[in-house]
C-alpha cells in the first residue's frame, strides 16, 4: 500500500508546525513535572503531618521550590504556544476555542486557581494552621489538574472528533478519559522517579557519611521510588490501553507510531516506529533502573549509574512520546480516521510571514532559556543545594 498524494504545504506550514511543536513539547515536558510535583507535595505534607514525620515535611517543602520555578518556565512557554497558535494557526485556534469552549474555560479557570494558590501555599506555610494549609494544597492540586483536564480535550479532539453539538462534546470523546489519565500518571512517574534519582545520587556522593540532610535524602529516595514505581505499574497498563484506543479511533496516527504490526494498519506519510521502539527501550530502562535502585535501597546501597539511568529515562520519556504523537500527524493537523485535515488548511494564509520571525523566536528562546536554566537552576542548586 502506498501513502495518499501529499497535501500541498508552504514554508509557513512547516515553520508554523515546527514552532508549535517546539513550544508544545517543551511546555508539556515542564507541565508534566508541574502536575507530578503539585500532586506529590501536598500528599507528602499530609502524610508528614499524619505521621509526625519532619523529614517528609521538609522534603515536601524543598520539592515545592522546584515546582515554583518549573511552573514559571512552563508558563512562559504556554504564552508562547498561545501566541504561535494565534499568529500561525489562527483558524485552528478559532475552531478549538469555539468547539471546545467549555474545556478551554475549565483549563483557564485551572490556571487562574493554580497560580495564586501556589503563591499562597508558599507564603503561608507555617503562618496558617495545618488544616488551612493543606486545604490550599488541595486547591493547588485541583487548579493544576483542571489545566490538563481542559487542555487535553484539545489533544483528544485533534486525534478523533465526536459528532455532537453538545457543550460537553470535548469530554465525550472516547480517547479523552484515557488521554487525561495517561498524562497525569506520566507526570507523577516523571517527577517521582526523577527526584528519587536525584536524592539517590546525593546519597551516593556521601558514600555512607551521614549528616543532617541524609535523613531527608533517604526519605526522598524511598518516597520517590515507591510513588514512582507504583505509578509506573499503572502507567504501563494505561499506556497499553491508550495504544489500543488509538488503533481503534485514530488509525492514521496509530499506524504512523506503531507501524504495520497491528491489524488495521493504513499507509502513512512518515514512519515513527523507530522512535516508538526507542521509547519502549526508555521505559525498559526506567523499569530496570527503578527496581534495581529499590533493591539497592533496601540494602542501604546507592548506585550512581542506575540513578543516572533512572533520571535520564524519567526525563526523556514524556518529551519523546509527545514529539512522536505530535509529529506523526504531519502533514495533517486534525486526524480523521485513516486520513486527516491537512495542516495547510489551518495555517495563516492572510499574510506572508517572514521566516525571520521564526528564526528570531528560536534564537531568543534558545538563548534566554539556556541562560535561564543555567543561571537559575545553578543558583537554586547552590543556594538550596543541600536543601534540594
Amino acid at each position, binding site marked *: 500500500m502506498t501513502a495518499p498524494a501529499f497535501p500541498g504545504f508552504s514554508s509557513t506550514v512547516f515553520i508554523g508546525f515546527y514552532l508549535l511543536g517546539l513550544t508544545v513539547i517543551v511546555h508539556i515536558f515542564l507541565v508534566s513535572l508541574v502536575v507530578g510535583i503539585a500532586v506529590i507535595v501536598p500528599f507528602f505534607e499530609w502524610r508528614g503531618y499524619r505521621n509526625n514525620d519532619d523529614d517528609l515535611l521538609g522534603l515536601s517543602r524543598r520539592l515545592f521550590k522546584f515546582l515554583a*520555578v518549573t511552573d*514559571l518556565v512552563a*508558563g*512562559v512557554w*504556554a*504564552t*508562547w504556544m*498561545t*501566541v504561535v497558535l*494565534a*499568529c*500561525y494557526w*489562527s*483558524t485552528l*485556534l*478559532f*475552531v478549538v*476555542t*469555539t468547539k471546545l*469552549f*467549555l474545556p478551554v*474555560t475549565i483549563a*483557564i*479557570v485551572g*490556571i*487562574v*486557581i493554580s*497560580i*495564586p*494558590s501556589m*503563591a*499562597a501555599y508558599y*507564603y503561608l506555610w507555617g503562618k*496558617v*494552621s495545618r488544616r488551612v494549609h493543606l*486545604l490550599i494544597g488541595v*486547591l493547588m492540586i485541583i487548579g493544576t489538574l483542571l489545566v490538563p483536564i481542559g487542555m487535553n480535550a484539545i489533544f483528544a479532539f485533534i486525534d478523533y472528533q465526536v459528532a455532537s453539538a453538545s*457543550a460537553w462534546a470535548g469530554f465525550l470523546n472516547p480517547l479523552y478519559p484515557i488521554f487525561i489519565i495517561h498524562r497525569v500518571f506520566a507526570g507523577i512517574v516523571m517527577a517521582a522517579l526523577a527526584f528519587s534519582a536525584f536524592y539517590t545520587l546525593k546519597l551516593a556522593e556521601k558514600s555512607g557519611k551521614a549528616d543532617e540532610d541524609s535523613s531527608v535524602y533517604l526519605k526522598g529516595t524511598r518516597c520517590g521510588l515507591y510513588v514512582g514505581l507504583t505509578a509506573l505499574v499503572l502507567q504501563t497498563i494505561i499506556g497499553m490501553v491508550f495504544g489500543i484506543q488509538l488503533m481503534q479511533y485514530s488509525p492514521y496516527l496509530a499506524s504512523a507510531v506503531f507501524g504495520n504490526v497491528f491489524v488495521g494498519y493504513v499507509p502513512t506519510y512518515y514512519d515513527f516506529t523507530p522512535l516508538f521502539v526507542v521509547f519502549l527501550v526508555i521505559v525498559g530502562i526506567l523499569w530496570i533502573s527503578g527496581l534495581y535502585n529499590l533493591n539497592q535501597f533496601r540494602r542501604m546501597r546507592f548506585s550512581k549509574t542506575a540513578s543516572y539511568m533512572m533520571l535520564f529515562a524519567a526525563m526523556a520519556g514524556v518529551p519523546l512520546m509527545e514529539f512522536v504523537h505530535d509529529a506523526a500527524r504531519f502533514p495533517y493537523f486534525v486526524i480523521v480516521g485513516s486520513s486527516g*485535515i491537512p495542516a495547510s*488548511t*489551518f495555517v*495563516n*494564509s*492572510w*499574510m*506572508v*510571514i*517572514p521566516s525571520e*520571525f521564526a528564526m528570531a*523566536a528560536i534564537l*531568543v528562546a534558545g538563548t*534566554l*532559556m539556556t*541562560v*535561564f536554566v543555567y*543561571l*537559575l537552576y545553578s*543558583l*537554586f542548586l547552590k*543556594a538550596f543545594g543541600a536543601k534540594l
Partner: protein
Amino acid sequence: MSAKRTPLQNSIRGLMSSTVLLPAFVAVFAAGGLLPFSVLGANVANADKAEVITVIGIYIHAWFLSFALGLPPIVLTLEFLGIRRRNPDYMKAAERTSRIWGISFAAGAATGTLVEFGLVQIWSGSLIVLGTFFFAPLFIEVFAFMLELVLLYLYLFTWSTYRYTWKHWMFGLFIAVGSIWSAYQILAANAWMNIPWGTGDLASKVLPWVPTLGPNVTNSTAMIRVLSLLPSNGSAVVGNLNAMQSIGQILTNPLIAFSNPEAVPLFLHTVTASIATIGFLASMFLSVKYFRNRGKREYYAKFLKVTFGIAAVVSLLQPLFGDMEGRLEYTYMYTKFLALEGIPPQGGTNPILGLLLLNNPNHFFQGFDYLRTLVGSSISPGLASYTIDFAQQNQPWLTTFFLVMVVSSIILVIFSIVYFGLYSKKLNRLVRLVFRRDTQDVLFASSLVLPLLAILASVFGWVAREMGRHPWSIYGLITYNEIVTPVNLTWGYIALIVFIELLLGVGGTVAMYISFQWKASDEKNLLSEKSEDAQQLVKG
C-alpha cells in the same frame, strides 16, 4: 498557631475561604446548565456581555501592570543609591520593594492569561487581526516577556548572593527594559485599534471624516471581502475553512503597526502615567508611615525624595505626551475628539484648543451636525450615523471623564513643581509663601491625596479613550459585535469569570500589601548614620 489575628489576617482567611468555593461555583453553574453553549451568530447582546468580562479583566490586569512598569524606576534608583553610597537603608528598601514587583508581576501574568484567552476565546473574531496586523507586535512581545521573566527570578532570588553589585542592578535594568519593551508592543496593537494605520482610505469609506490612514499595505480586495463577511457572519466566518482560505493575502507589510503615528505617543503617555501613579502611591505609603510615626521623619524623607521625585519628573512630561495624543485624536478620531472636548453639536470655538492645536484661538471646530452632512457619502450610512449618535449621546460622560483626567493631571503637575522646592531655595520660599509649610511637609501631606488623583486620571483617561471608540473595535473597520464569539455567553458564565477576576485583583493586592510590611524594628535597624541625604533633608 497563634489564635490572635489581625483584621488583615481575617480578611485573608475570608478571601481564602471564598477561593475554596470556586470549584463549588463551577459545579453549580454546570449542574444548572448555566454555562454556555449553543452556537449563535454574532450579536450585540453577546458582545455586551463579553465586554463586562473584558473591561473588568483589563482594568485588573492594568492595575498590576502599573506596578510592573512603575516599580522598576523606584527599585533601581534605590538600589543605585545603595550601591553607590554603600548604604544599607537604600538596599533594604530596594529589596523590600522588589517583592511587590515580583508579586505584581505574578498577578499580572495570571490576569494576563485571562486577558489573552479572553482575546482569542471570547473575541475570537479578532484572530483575523491577530494573524495579520497584530502578528508582529504580539509575536515580538513574547521575547520581551521572556526577558522579563528570566531575569526577574534571578533578580528576586539573588539579593544576598550579589549584594552591592552592579551585576544585580543590571539584572533589574534589563527587566525594566523588558517591561517597557513589552508595553510598547501591546500599546502599538492598541494604538492600531484606534488608528488602523496602513489601511489607506478604507475607513473613510465608512466614516467619511476619517482621513487616509497611511499607505494602503493591504490587499484591498481581500480586506473588503473580510469586512463584508464579518457583519453578516460574525466571527463564525473565521471557522469557515473554505471562506478563510479563499480570502487570500490580506496584509503585505507585517510591521505596519509600528509605523502608526499613535504608537509612540500612546506608549510614552501610558508608561509615564504608570510610573507617576506608582511613584505617588509609594509616596502615600511613606507618608502614612510618617504621620503614624513622626519620630522617623528623616528615614521616610530620604525615600520620599526618590519616590516623589520619580513621579514628579514623569508627571511634568505628561502634558507634552497628552498634547501629542490630543493632536492625533483631532486628526484621526474626530468623533472622539468632539465628545471628549465637549464641542457643541453645531460646532464652536475653543480658544485654548484652537491655540494649542492650530495656533489660532478663533478657529471654528465643526460639530456633530457637520459630520451628519457627510454621512450620505458613506458606504454604510447607518453605521456612520450610529457612530456620531453614540459619541453625541455620551458626550456629557466623556467630557466629564476627560475633564477629571485633565484637572487631576494639572494638580499633579503643580505638586510636581513643588517637589523641586527641595533643591531650589527660591521655589522653597514660594512654597512656604503659598502653603505656609516647608516643601517637605507639603510633599508628605499632598502624598496622601495625589495617588488618588493619579489613579483617577489613568482610569478616566482609559475609559474615555476606549468608550470614545465605541462601537468600533477597529475604528472605521470592524465593530465589536462582529468579532465576539459565536458561542452564546450566559450570565452564569459571565458571573463566574468576573468572580475569578475580582478574586485575583483582591488577592494580588492583599499579597502585595503583606509582602511590603515594614516593621518599626526594621526601620530602627535600617536608619543609617551614613545617610547623607537624610541629614540634608532634616537640615533643609
